[in-house]
């Protein structure tokens, strides 16, 4: 079974071509790290899979069916907004807002929905966060609640957009391990975008590296290489491995690190 299939997909945002004739096939049940420089289309790729962005050419299939909005089989954690951090709503209400949130009516949860929310909170180990306001949770705790939210409806495909942003290294490890564990337990396909490969090493099955409108998919050793990345970045790239860590360098400049730092200011 193929989780996601792109066939010669071109996606443009305004006049900018973000993905250009990208073809790829993501197998079911894999943990895929989505990497690439800022603006390389990591978010756009996910939004295209969710049917929120229509490709100008080519076709996208999700679990064998054409990509469309409202696909219950796809869970999504959008890149975190500032407003979520200052929300005074309790963790429970935050997660609950997503249960059947597309249906008309008053928000009160029915018994079956309550069970589903409790299950999602327990699965990510966030039961004790249910009563606290979101504004009083730490970055790592908020990630758990966001994960619980996208597990509702038990998706087979999970799209996580930069879940490690603004987390310290310890919490980055915790989140990666939690997602890996959930991915195996619930037999999901996970697309996990990040600025840096290192926190994901050991957890991921494959890397999907985006750049210059193109994509490279494969194992870490196949994709994170000088020749492949040079093609994606459109400039000379050197890959340095030190003590089990990988550094993507352009000249003397660490590209992934600088991307990360750049974003931390936002």
């Amino acid at each position, binding site marked *: 079974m193929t989780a996601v299939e792109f066939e010669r997909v071109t996606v443009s945002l305004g006049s900018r071509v973000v993905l250009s004739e990208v073809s790829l096939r993501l197998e079911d049940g894999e943990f895929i790290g989505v990497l690439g420089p800022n603006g390389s289309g990591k978010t756009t790729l996910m939004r295209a899979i969710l049917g929120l962005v229509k490709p100008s050419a080519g076709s996208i299939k999700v679990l064998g069916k054409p990509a469309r909005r409202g696909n219950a089989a796809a869970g*999504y954690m*959008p890149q975190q907004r500032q407003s979520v951090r200052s929300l005074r709503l309790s963790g429970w209400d935050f997660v609950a807002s997503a249960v059947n949130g*597309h249906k008309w009516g008053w928000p009160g949860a029915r018994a079956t929905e309550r069970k589903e929310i409790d299950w999602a909170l327990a699965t990510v180990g966030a039961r004790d966060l249910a009563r606290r306001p979101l504004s009083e949770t730490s970055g790592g705790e908020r990630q758990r609640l966001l994960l619980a939210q996208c597990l509702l409806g038990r998706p087979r495909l999970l799209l996580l957009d930069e879940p490690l942003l603004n987390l310290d290294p310890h919490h980055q490890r915790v989140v990666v391990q939690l997602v890996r564990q959930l991915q195996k337990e619930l037999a999901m396909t996970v697309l996990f975008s990040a600025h840096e490969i290192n926190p994901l090493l050991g957890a991921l099955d494959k890397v999907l590296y985006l750049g210059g409108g193109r994509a490279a998919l494969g194992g870490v050793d196949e994709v994170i290489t000088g020749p492949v990345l040079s093609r994606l970045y459109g400039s000379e790239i050197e890959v340095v491995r030190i003590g089990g860590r990988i550094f993507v360098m352009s000249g003397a400049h660490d590209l992934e690190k600088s991307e990360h730092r750049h974003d931390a200011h936002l």
Partner: protein
Amino acid sequence: MLTYDFMVNAFLASGIVAVVAGIVGFFLVLRGQTFAGHALSHVGFAGATGAVLVGLPPLWGLVAFTVGAGLGMGVLGERLSGRDVAIGIILSLSMGLGLLFLHFYTAYATQVTALLFGNVLGVDSETLWTLLLLGAVSLAALAVIARPLLFASIQPELAEAKGVSLQLVSLLFLAIVALTVAECTQIVGVLLVFTLMVGPAAAAGRWTSRLGRGVALAAILALAEAWTGVTLAYYTDWPTSFWITALSAAVYFASLPR
């Protein structure tokens, strides 16, 4: 106090409006759209004075203009977010237009004051029924859209992916806000709509983190402020709107230290 018809009407009218304003206001605060509510009330001023000029009841002019402007904001949607200057200029233009309409009408100062600062003691039974009807429509519509509204307010991208139309939800909500603003204007006037729609809801949001309790508390606070305000106005002979704004501010600031 309750032997006077106008006092009974004042309690009923302010009660209806306060409950609706508290509940709708809770979602307005949650979405961070309070400035839109403020702007809509000013647009309503032009509508009300325009209606008077052509010989229609001011309330209907108010409703027509606020709902029209609310729908307009909803259609522009994301393009308006962060455009406080544009909203502010439309807000001033509306007040200017209202002034022009009054100039042609050469109206009494009392009518202007009533529009700007409210006149709850002047509510007749016909207006009372209109308020009840508008309030029922607002709350019924809110009950229909509340679930996707909440989802779209908290996690817009996720809601969109799950099939919620952000634009439709925003459009319907702003129409509801517009109706509520028009109602509030009858009690506290164009300039003081914030006091019933935002004050109690913001305080409620600080006192509880549970959604249901927050909505209920916002309605209760707004109702308590309105009724206490009317009562104090009766005994002091000071303006009702003053008392409501004072109570609203007191309750909001009391909620801050937490």
